[in-house]
């Protein structure tokens, strides 16, 4: 399956997300300072750093969810698949369609599992009822949930276990065919077994989607990502292949952080 391709350009760009001089303020508080990041297409990139370092803020500006707060001001560019998403001509609904988001607390909708999966699909496809069953099966299979729920698709999504809820939240993004999945600490509400299962699933999705995952858990970043970004006080300190970042960090701050000297 191919990642979604820009209409003018049949080649997938090398970078899915590319920011230049991104600065962000909450009111008068500056949360991001000159963030230049290039996040590779089709890879899993993790964002680590101590609380308040701006990693979630960065994640949330990639699908423009931050701006809903009203007092957020942004300077600089964020390009997703070579399109500046802050361009005035950009339709927010299209941005959200391309860039799915998974939250810290699983938030399935209080409707059936079936309707949860079809929710996004129905928003973006007028009236096509034909292949609904196929869509559901394929989405649930991709998140390794099909065998568990195939006989109770009419149960409410909110009745599943937390691990299954989180998988459902990932599954419901897939029928809309996003190219980027943003995950904001997707395992922090789960127990170790659930965490392992969701990590496994994220790893399975590698290559098909560009995944950007914020995590507090360094072991998780190390296990479940290919590239890793370390942020501190709103700045990007280091961006490397995950193994290199953990084994041979170039910056002292990174080394201090991964050795647990702060955070």
């Amino acid at each position, binding site marked *: 399956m191919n990642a979604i391709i820009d209409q003018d350009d049949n080649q997938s760009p090398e970078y899915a997300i590319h920011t230049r001089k991104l600065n962000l303020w909450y009111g008068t508080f500056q949360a991001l300072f000159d963030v230049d990041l290039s996040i590779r297409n089709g890879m899993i990139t993790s964002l680590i750093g101590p609380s308040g370092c701006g990693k979630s803020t960065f994640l949330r500006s990639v*699908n423009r*969810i931050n701006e*809903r707060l*009203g007092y957020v001001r942004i300077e600089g560019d964020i390009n997703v698949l070579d399109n500046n998403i802050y361009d005035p001509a950009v339709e*927010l*609904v*299209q*941005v*959200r*369609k391309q860039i*799915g*988001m998974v*939250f810290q*607390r699983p*938030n*399935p*909708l*209080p*409707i059936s599992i079936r309707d949860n999966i079809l*929710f*996004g699909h129905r*928003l*973006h496809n007028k009236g096509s009822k034909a292949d609904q069953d196929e869509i559901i099966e394929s989405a649930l299979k991709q998140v390794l949930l099909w065998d568990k729920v195939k006989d109770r698709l009419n149960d*409410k999504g*909110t*009745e599943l276990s937390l691990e299954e809820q989180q998988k459902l*939240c990932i599954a*419901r*993004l897939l029928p*809309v065919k996003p190219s980027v999945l943003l995950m904001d600490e997707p395992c922090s509400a789960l127990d170790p077994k659930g965490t392992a299962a969701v990590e496994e699933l994220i790893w399975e999705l590698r290559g098909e989607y560009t995944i950007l995952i914020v995590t507090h858990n360094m072991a998780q970043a190390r296990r479940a990502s290919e590239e890793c970004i370390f942020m501190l006080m709103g700045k990007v300190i280091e961006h490397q292949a995950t193994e290199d970042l953990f084994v041979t960090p170039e910056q002292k701050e990174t080394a201090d952080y991964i050795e647990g000297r702060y955070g």
Partner: protein
Amino acid sequence: MFAESDLNARNKRVQGLFRMLFLMMTVLLIVPVAIILFTLVSKGGGVISIDFLFTNPTDGMTAGGIFPALLGTVWIVAVALLASVPLGVAAAIYLNEYAGDNWFTRLIQLAIINLAGVPSIVHALFGVGAFVIFFGFGTSILAASLTLAIMTLPIVIVSTRESLRAVPQAFREACWNMGATRWQTIRRIVLPNAISGILTGVILEVSRTAGETAPIMFTGAAFFLPFLPQGVFDQTMAMSLHLFVVATQVPGVPEELPFGVALVLIAMVLIMNSISIAFRMYLRGKKKW
């Protein structure tokens, strides 16, 4: 080591005392309700019959039934709901789902709170000026119902907002992040989950509307009418005004008649409230998150 000390004993006595005090206050709350119901049933229960409910008053309202008043109250309440529910629910949706927190919405909030505090007799005068005279509806069901609708708008708005607020924000975020518009989110997720609370508010409004007297006595409710209303531009009798009339304005009414009227009125309200509670429990039982 673990034996009770003097201080323990004293603390326990004080704690017991306060527990008793609070319990008594709570019981005290029920007493007036119980006395009212008991009085009404014992004094008015005797006049209640199918005939009482479904025949006209006779002998200068000293005998006969209450059918025109009963039907009139149903008319007034129904028309008032038709006006206030769409308006109130729409306003609440705007305030809760669309509007940001700015001076404009705070002004509206303030207006709603003040609207709730306006005495009903002032609403009555407003109704006369606005609906009876300015819009030319005359003294009619329409004028009376619109007056009541405006009076009860705060109830609908506040209760609707409360139930919208009770829908977890995470559901909205989930929708928005899949590219749903505000309206799609409201229509598919927020309203279905808020509907039980909204309906509860509506039913509370019904009971309030059914009991009001002042706002309708100048705008559409009549002292006595020998015929039933045919449409919204007719005047009508109403239960609340009828109670006032037979209790104070007409000589020679047998003592149990006003109690009977009051009993029917309060029964209407209690039945509506019970339906509301049962309905809410039913819908609550169905939702899980």
